């Protein structure tokens, strides 16, 4: 054999080897379809556990379109790579998961591959769900397979090349999917481990609260240091938290369970759905999550404690002499707007959650940017149907962008220990734009709650 022949042979062998390796990375077999299992074939206790787990996993939030049937999918999820539509996870045999076996369901949870062997986009957070154990996957499967089947095909994803190629997802997984179920940390308590298992697994807290890299994967080095979701900022929930008062395990439990906490205010935006779900699951699980997250926050630094002291002192002095009765200087339009439109509730001294929070305690005003505060000023806090819940009127129709920007700048300077925000005007314009869009796609009044039960609220 000539030398060139050997080289060619080696090249062909290498290419073939590469192709086989690539095939091994990309290709996944289909899993046989099954006859949709009868709802009666599942143990009621298993279904009930699955229901609680689905609430902890917040499944309905992404897999239900506003005003649509629960778990029927079709929700557009905007990503930097295009729009991905959530899938129908009701047991409909044609458009849902009715013909999926439990093994197919478990494979989807663990490695992001659907029954037919197609790679799923990581908007479905299998980088977290890979940690869910077999027993919990079985319960989730039992719960979903006993829901009413809804015939609803999800619209086709709207992604640009190369992101519209599913094999690209296989490459993504090589880089970012660390398979394997949760490993117990034996130096920690059982409750802590339970919390870590839920937070890093099914509850997928990092999906919103951890920043993402250019390829849309969570930055492992920056776990829980704050991320983006829709047009909201998901706050840092580790040592970088800028909440005026440090979070404690008790405060976390109260907030996650009740949707509000006297030291931190009410959960709004996408977090409202999360706390609504957590109000109906076993209390022990929420306590475990709070315990684990408390350890993620870590003990507050001396700086944070000093700041908290200053915050408490300022609240006392505000109670003695409210801003609303101090003469506002006419050249600060933000102060004037605050006194006229905001102070009547936010300085009322009525207890939370039904009054306005003392803004000295607001995490929104201490956040890195004013998005969340702008969203709340524009849209207010809508009451939740059929429940007692916090309220605030929106000011989108009565305040101009300039007035909202002025009041945000004033609030930041007056009530937060953080440096001034930049680009507030543009952020307000963007927030108004997305507020308008979300109102245009607002649900019809007969919207169905995502399987959550009546909240146990004061």
């Amino acid at each position, binding site marked *: 054999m000539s030398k060139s022949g050997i080289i060619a042979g080696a090249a062909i062998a290498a290419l073939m080897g590469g192709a086989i390796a690539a095939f091994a990375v990309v290709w996944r077999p289909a899993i046989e379809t099954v006859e949709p299992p009868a709802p009666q074939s599942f143990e009621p206790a298993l279904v009930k556990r699955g229901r609680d787990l689905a609430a902890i996993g917040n499944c309905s939030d992404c897999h239900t379109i506003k005003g649509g049937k629960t778990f029927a999918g079709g929700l557009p999820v905007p990503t930097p790579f295009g729009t991905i539509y959530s899938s129908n996870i009701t047991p409909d045999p044609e458009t849902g998961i009715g013909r999926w076996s439990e093994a197919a369901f478990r494979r989807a949870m663990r490695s992001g591959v659907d029954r037919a062997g197609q790679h799923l986009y990581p908007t479905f957070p299998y980088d977290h769900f890979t940690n869910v154990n077999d027993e919990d996957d079985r319960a989730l499967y039992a719960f979903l397979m006993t829901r009413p089947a809804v015939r609803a095909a999800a619209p086709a994803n709207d992604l640009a090349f190369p992101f519209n190629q599913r094999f690209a997802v296989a490459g993504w997984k090589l880089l970012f999917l660390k398979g394997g179920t949760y490993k117990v940390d034996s130096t920690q308590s059982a409750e802590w481990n339970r919390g870590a298992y839920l937070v890093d697994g099914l509850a997928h807290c990092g999906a919103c609260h951890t920043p993402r890299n250019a390829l849309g994967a969570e930055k492992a080095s920056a776990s829980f240091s704050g991320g983006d979701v829709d047009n909201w900022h998901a706050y840092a929930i580790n040592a970088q938290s800028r909440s005026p008062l440090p979070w404690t395990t008790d405060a976390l439990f109260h907030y996650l369970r009740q949707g509000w906490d006297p030291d931190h205010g009410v959960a709004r935006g996408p977090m409202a759905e999360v706390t609504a779900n957590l109000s109906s699951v076993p209390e022990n699980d929420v306590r475990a999550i709070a315990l684990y997250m408390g350890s993620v926050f870590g003990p507050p630094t001396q700086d944070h404690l000093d700041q908290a002291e200053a915050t408490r002192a300022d609240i006392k002095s505000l109670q003695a002499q409210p801003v*609303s009765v101090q003469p506002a200087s006419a050249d600060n339009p933000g102060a004037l*707007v605050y006194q006229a*439109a905001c102070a009547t509730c936010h300085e009322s001294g009525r207890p939370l959650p039904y009054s306005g929070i003392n803004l000295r305690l607001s995490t929104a005003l201490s956040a890195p940017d004013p998005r969340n505060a702008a969203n709340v000023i524009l849209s207010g806090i809508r009451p939740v149907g059929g429940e007692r819940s916090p309220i605030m*009127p929106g*000011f989108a*129709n009565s305040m101009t962008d300039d007035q909202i920007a002025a009041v945000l700048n004033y609030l930041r300077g007056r009530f937060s220990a953080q440096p001034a925000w930049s680009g507030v005007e543009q952020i307000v314009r963007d927030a108004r734009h997305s507020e308008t869009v979300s*109102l245009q796609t607002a*649900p*019809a009044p007969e919207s169905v709650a995502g399987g959550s039960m009546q909240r146990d609220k004061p």
Partner: protein
Amino acid sequence: MTTLKVNGHDHEIDADPDTPLLYVLRDELKLNAAKFGCGLGQCGACTVIVDGKAVLSCVTPLLLLKGKEVTTLEGLGTVEKPAPIQRAFIEEQAAQCGYCIAGMMMRAQALLQRTPKPTDAQIRSELQTNLCRCGTHMRILRAVHRAAHLMDTAELTTNGSAQ
């Protein structure tokens, strides 16, 4: 003194800048169509139109109305010459106790100015923030559709009333 433009007329108002628009309308200007319901911006009985948009007058302080134009139900039409939205609500007999109806009409009016032929879903979604305890919702829905039809067929003056 603040100048407040209501239904096309300027008024000199002597009130603190945090005075809610609703109080000025009812107590100073004696325009009583807008109602006090909850005082928290949650029921919609106080709804008026400011620069074409539905605004809750009970939580809108005077300060925010500088240079803006307020329209109340009185500015749309009169007993003798009801506006299409008023005619439609009368013809559908959409009021029972009537307390919420002025607010309903104002929010519906703002919707129709923006969206002349709203769908059922758009009307429901828009009026979601206005509460009615009598339960005349189906008649209110019909009335808004009827008003859309009336506006489409009648010649309109600039203030929204039919000629």
